[in-house]
């Protein structure tokens, strides 16, 4: 039996993946099942996953998407050794469910803020990182989507983001004018320093707000629920916190605050990382079908475009609903195109088969100037009017003959 494949986002920052959930899934697999039963695939292709996001697990032809589903699948699959939450009591299991939601709710915005929304880090580190492993047109779309999602997740931190941005832009100011040394008085720099400290304090409070409960819970234990082996909560924590702790960023506020004030958490994460996110993980190149190629990317982009353009915004009952949604959209688009084409061809047919009109150019000399006027009329009309002989008045009534005199107002 070929080993189980775990499809994740690319390695980065010395970690096996750039996504917290992928890191959590890697930590889970390396703690739950023997090393030779699974391999890591950096497919970067979220369309392989049944729920549209990595990590995704591939066992033969079966696909499982998302950390929670992977845990459930692996646990139900093998013997009881695979259930790393197996030793937990009933109430600890309930707590695990609650802490899962707590960790995601509090740390996902912080990770997004640190890696994506802090503009210095995004411009200098994270954005260039995507270009190293994605090919030409794709390297513009995927980081953009991830950045947009991170911005949406940190929407409630707007004022903090503004403060960070203001702090970052400050060193550039003196360069802009020659009078910088005159305008930046000592008083001003002191107030700037104060602002920097204020921002740092707010960031610290943001981190402490979510880390304090974790620290309190850890309290000199090796793992979140005590015991001798990690649980899924430990996996999630190492996934999220290692992305705060290990990347070398231009604006390393998360790392500094963690190292200064949460040394017990730092040593806890260090320990877990060495044990469960080692650098010698087995890798495998993705299969041809799962690879992120221009074709597969374009197909997914076109399939998702009704949703991403906001033309179809809905959450269907199951994942098939998403496919049906975009299919129905494209069917409708095809229908409209078909209708337009039919109408166009009918009109074209009519235009081509009716009697051709001829342009009659009248050249007259009025007040010493040559005046051209064009009259359009059916051939039959001309014949009729010519055949009528005396009835020119009637022909004039039928044909919108344009008289040059009228135009000149004579």
């Amino acid at each position, binding site marked *: 039996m070929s080993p189980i494949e775990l499809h994740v*986002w690319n390695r980065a920052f010395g970690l096996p993946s750039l*996504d*917290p*959930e992928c890191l959590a899934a890697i930590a889970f697999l390396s703690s739950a099942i023997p090393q030779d039963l699974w391999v890591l695939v950096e497919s970067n292709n*979220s369309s392989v996953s049944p*729920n*549209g*996001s*990595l990590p995704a697990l591939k066992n033969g032809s079966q696909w499982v*998407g*998302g950390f929670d589903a992977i845990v459930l699948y692996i646990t139900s699959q093998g013997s009881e050794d695979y259930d790393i939450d197996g030793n937990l009591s*009933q*109430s600890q*299991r*309930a*707590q695990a*469910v*609650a*802490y899962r*939601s*707590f960790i*995601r*709710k*509090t740390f*996902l*915005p912080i990770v997004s803020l640190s890696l994506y929304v802090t503009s210095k880090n995004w411009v200098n580190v994270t954005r260039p990182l995507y270009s190293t492993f994605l090919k030409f047109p794709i390297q513009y779309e995927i980081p953009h*989507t*991830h950045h947009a*999602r991170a911005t*949406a*997740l940190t*929407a409630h931190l707007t004022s903090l983001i503004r403060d960070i941005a203001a702090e970052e832009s400050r060193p550039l100011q003196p360069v802009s004018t020659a009078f910088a040394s005159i305008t930046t008085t000592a008083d001003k720099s002191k107030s700037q320093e104060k602002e920097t400290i204020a921002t740092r304090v707010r960031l610290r409070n943001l981190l402490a707000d979510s880390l*304090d*409960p*974790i620290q*309190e*819970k850890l309290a000199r234990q090796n793992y979140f629920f005590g015991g001798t082996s990690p649980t899924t909560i430990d996996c999630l924590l190492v996934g999220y916190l290692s992305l705060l702790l290990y990347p070398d960023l231009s604006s390393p506020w998360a790392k500094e605050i963690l190292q200064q004030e949460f040394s017990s958490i730092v040593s806890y994460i260090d320990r877990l990382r060495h044990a469960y996110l080692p650098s010698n993980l087995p890798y495998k190149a993705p299969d041809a079908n799962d690879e992120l190629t221009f074709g597969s990317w374009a197909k997914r982009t076109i399939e998702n475009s009704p*949703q991403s353009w906001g033309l179809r*915004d*809905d*959450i*269907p*009952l*199951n*994942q098939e*609903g*998403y496919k049906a949604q975009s299919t129905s959209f494209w069917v409708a688009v095809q229908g409209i195109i078909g209708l337009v084409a039919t109408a166009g061809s009918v009109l074209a047919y009519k235009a081509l088969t009716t009697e051709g009109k001829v342009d009659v150019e009248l050249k007259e000399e009025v007040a010493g100037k040559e005046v051209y006027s064009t009259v359009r009329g059916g051939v039959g009309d001309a014949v009729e009017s010519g055949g009528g002989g005396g009835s020119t008045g009637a022909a004039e009534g039928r044909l919108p003959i344009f008289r040059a005199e009228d135009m000149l107002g004579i």
Partner: protein
Amino acid sequence: MASSFPDALRAPTFIRRLFSQFPLVTHPVDPHPLTVDDFQPSSSSTSSSSSSSSKCENTLYSFTTCADSKTASFNPACLKWQTYLRIRSIPFKTQPSNNHASPSGALPFMIVSPSSSSSSSSSSERKSQTIPSGKLARWIDEHATIGSVNTVDTDGGDYRAFLSLVEGAVRDAWLYALYIDPTNLANLTVPKYTSTVPLWPIPHLQGAQMRQAAINSIRTSSSSSKTATPSGTEIYDKAAEAFSALSTLLAGDTWFFGAAEAGVFDAEVFAYTHLLLTVGDGMKGSSGEGLVSSLRGFENLCGHEERIRRRWFS
């Protein structure tokens, strides 16, 4: 007076004659707008203890159908605070309202008249106060006549973890069942929220707006990183898992976290369980039916809902 002006500045004769046709009336000065003190002079002059018990000066503006504080609101956020106010036995009345009325843009909010607060001695506190939902918890703690026996640590890790579970998984499922499921939206949600605007296209449009808001809210609720697309079944599964965790947490206790008296967390859970159990029959045949039946499977959660309903809402 006119004589002191130079002739050039005097109005022309015909205009003066015209204006003299109309009598110039000086109206009496308008009084200042009535304050609550002017309106109820007896409550501020006499001792306030007798009047505050007989009258309800606190008004909770919420999505509700009538002014009786015992009638449960049909919006979970409003019902949570309504329940907590009832639990702490603060006298108040409810006022049917909508988002446009709220200073913060969200319901509920509370307007407190000065005479009800015990510390209304200083004149600065004699104006009526508006309290948005975010500050209600503190206000209730400051103004409740009896101290709460519920001594749950609201900063504790477990408390916040379970709270995030209710605010995340359970709320998402509620939004999905009531707003995104088209049959429930048309049959249950829209008629309730737009009962005051029966004009044809408006309820329909508001329904579409509410639905879009629910979709956006579920999208940004961080149950998933990157660009995952949640589906209804996943949302319901998460909620069932959350109910199971909450049921385990409650176990055989009367209130959550083994407290001696109900607290904010009980109110929060009640807000969802009560509404899900009451609208349950209306959801027959829709996707939310499974959610309600999974909730019915947890007897202690239903018992918890019944305890609060019997004691404070009947």
